[in-house]
């Protein structure tokens, strides 16, 4: 795909939540978008074939709402009563990844997989393990885990995106470009109605821009960053990237404009560039010291903590069966 104009990214809006994934090459998993209800289709519940606890639905809601500590408490209660409940263990690990405690998350997710229980989110375990490994700096392990997930769920754009990031880290720019493009190719045909979906499209465009910037193709990078922002304007990191590309292109005024947009985007997402001096650092949700208040350098604002275009196992709306 070429670097399409931003308007093309909006695409036709379809009424279903997940759209249609073309060319399904492997049997759809219970949580695969291909198995999602099509417009007008009736969902027939089936009996659970794995040990479960109804409170996990509550956990999913808590995670979706960002209440990770409460989710942990609920999961602790569940696990106290059912210490071998693989699905609860999985969600415990997932909750820890949301808290960016990847080292602690890993064994939880691994235990869930080793439980042998066939809960629906299990197929995505390598995805979460891959991101945990990536954030822990073990790129080799992350690569294997991402590859395992792609083998099981070939149309997993965020896992492919992760492989693209690793290729970029390893300075394999051609591979990185192909992988980011593949991620985009899966994402684009889907509708752009959810914030996370638009964010993921923007993310893939932004990384394509990074590849172009690395190659010194500043004009293409600028175009790709703009495509990213057309999909997700709150991606303040991309405004910063766009500003830098424009600076290097000699577009000083446009660069300053992008920086202003970066400031606005930061304010929109609650991470203003200029901290307020003199305020006692009592805000419990603010990281108190050196680390940026959001996820670290690479990937940018949103280290994907779930396969975003797969049904999100943290939301009860996900068609998990």
């Amino acid at each position, binding site marked *: 795909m070429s670097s399409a104009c931003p308007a093309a990214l909006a695409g036709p809006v379809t009424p279903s939540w997940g759209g249609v994934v073309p060319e399904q090459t492997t049997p759809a998993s219970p949580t695969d978008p291909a198995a999602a209800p099509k417009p007008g289709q009736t969902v027939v519940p089936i009996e659970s074939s794995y040990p479960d606890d109804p409170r996990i639905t509550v956990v999913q809601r808590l995670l979706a709402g960002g209440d990770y500590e409460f989710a942990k408490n609920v999961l602790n209660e569940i696990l106290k009563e059912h210490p071998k409940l693989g699905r609860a263990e999985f969600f415990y690990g997932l909750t820890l990844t949301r808290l*960016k405690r990847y080292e602690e998350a890993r064994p939880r997710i691994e235990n869930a997989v080793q439980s042998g229980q066939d809960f629906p989110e299990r197929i995505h375990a390598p995805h979460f393990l891959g991101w945990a490994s990536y954030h822990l700096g073990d790129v080799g392990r992350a690569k294997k885990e991402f590859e395992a997930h792609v083998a099981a769920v070939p149309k997993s754009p965020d896992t492919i995106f992760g492989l693209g990031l690793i290729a970029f880290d390893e300075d394999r720019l051609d591979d990185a470009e192909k992988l980011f493009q593949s991620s985009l190719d899966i994402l684009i045909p889907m509708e752009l109605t959810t914030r996370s979906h638009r964010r993921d499209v923007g993310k893939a465009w932004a990384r394509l821009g990074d590849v172009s910037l*690395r190659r010194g193709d500043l004009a293409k990078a600028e175009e790709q960053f703009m495509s990213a922002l057309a999909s997700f304007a709150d991606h303040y990191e991309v405004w910063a990237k766009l500003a830098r590309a424009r600076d290097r292109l000699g577009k000083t005024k446009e660069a300053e404009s992008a920086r202003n947009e970066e400031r606005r985007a930061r304010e929109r997402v609650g991470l203003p560039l200029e901290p307020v001096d003199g305020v006692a650092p009592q805000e419990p949700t603010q990281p108190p010291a*050196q680390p940026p208040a959001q996820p670290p*350098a690479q990937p940018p604002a949103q280290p994907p903590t779930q396969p975003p275009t797969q049904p999100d196992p943290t939301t009860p709306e996900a068609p998990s069966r």
Partner: protein
Amino acid sequence: MIVPLALALLAMNHAGGKDVGIGFTDVTAASGLVATMTSGTLPSSQIVEVKGGGLALIDFDRDGDLDIFMPNGATLADSERGPGAKLFRNDSTVDGIRFVDVTASSGIALTRWSFGVAVGDVNADGLDDIFVSCFGPDVMLRNRGDGTFEDVSAPSGIAAPERAQEWGTGCAFADLDGDGDLDLYVVNYLAFDATNLLPTTKFRGLEVMSGPKGLPAQRDRLFLNDGTGVFTDVTDASGIGAAKPSYGLNLAILDFSGDGKLDIFVGNDSHANFLFVQGDANEANGQRVPFFTDEGMKSGVATNMEGLEQATMGIAVADVDGNGRPDIFTTNFSSDTNTLHLNLDGTFFDDRTSQFGFGAVSRPYLGWATAFVDFDHDGDEDVLVVNGHVYPQATKQSFDSDYEQRPLLMVRKGRRFEALTEAGAWKLEPHRDRTAVFADLDRDGDVDVVIAELNGPLRVLRNDRSSATAKNWLVVEPRDARRGHGDRHAVGAALTVRSTDADGSERVQRRWNSGGGPFQSTLAPEMHVGFPIGTSKVSLELRWPDGTVERRENIELGQRLTFERVGERSTTAQPVAQ
């Protein structure tokens, strides 16, 4: 036969055909370098306790080797009266690294909570003096030349009343206005009240110390020297004061733009870094004042590639991509990466952290002092970063990063750097490291390391490279001994080294004598270069800070060389070919 572990590994690596080639031996016990760097008490609970202090390399007795000065910290109970700074005389020989504590006889009685340190001949008397940035009024120590120092803080003009409330971190001397004397840049961190301790706050689900976010940042200071060691604060007149106060920690002074004038890179914690590019001078109160504009954001060096501000503790400069320009490497917080900004053209920098292999591997570490050094004499520079978390509560489980951490040694392998996991035993020990200095302490041709740990003993790591291999190294010292010239070490000097490898290909290496240091510390006033076995046709080109160029051909390896300027100082640069 018992073989020291490090040497055994060195030999094993050679025998296995994999020339890892780096081996250190911890010689602290025998070195006499016995000191503990105090910084509050453990476990740290306030931000002032977690930065640690610096180390300085200084040939205070002019015997040709580098002695060590350690400013020291204090505790919250009394920030004015800590255990005190230490001065160690270097009595090393090629047979061993030896230091003698000469603090008592030096007259140094600095007990204030100290952080950064800079070394330079501020009054142009041929002797290196010491500046110490403090939590509170900074201190200038004049070298009397008889082994003693005198506190000249007040007459030097650096101790203005408003400075008493500042917390100085990194600092450096350089001849910023090109008049031959050493000016002074002091990086400031934030306003902290030791009598009003901060409560903890929550981060990643744990209660940890507060700051820096939410605390008032302090602006940096620039002082111009009148040539006699008396300084004037020109922060406002120089444009430095126009920058938004930020949580500054460290700096590097060098001609990053390539226009012949020194620029200043300042690493800020959680704020955008500054790149003060020097333009045309201003006149202020009859004084010619260099003027700087912060081009950090526009140049791309203010943040990482994501546009995110980083912690930026350690700073190291090297020509990583071989384009002849100084690139900037910085160390950062855990779960973030250390960052490499390539200097593309003197105007723009680009974050190439991952391209060179620095990204993922550094995530578990919270990095501090760092330096590029060719530890293994293979003709390219490696990188050492010392690490340790600021939160005593940090564990792998809770923060994906332990409180005590190993140093990270990155070895150049082709275009990328790879973490070395098989060096000596010292590397396997986790510490609360903060700073380090890098120098050929025993003058055997390879670079040794002294590391300072937060509330822990200094460690001396002897590089065993020279004893294990051929003398394929050079140590080059620029020495400006012209009368009345204070910038004796030629801060900003650039060395280009050309040589021919065994296969006939040309190798070009570059080194800079930059101002600033690994972290709140100083760099050795000399440039070390390693070469692969079989190197021939070595030539050197030294560009002095005033643009004068000297060349030398057919250099024999395995020696220390001095480029020296003598006589009267000329007011205009005159290229000299030798």
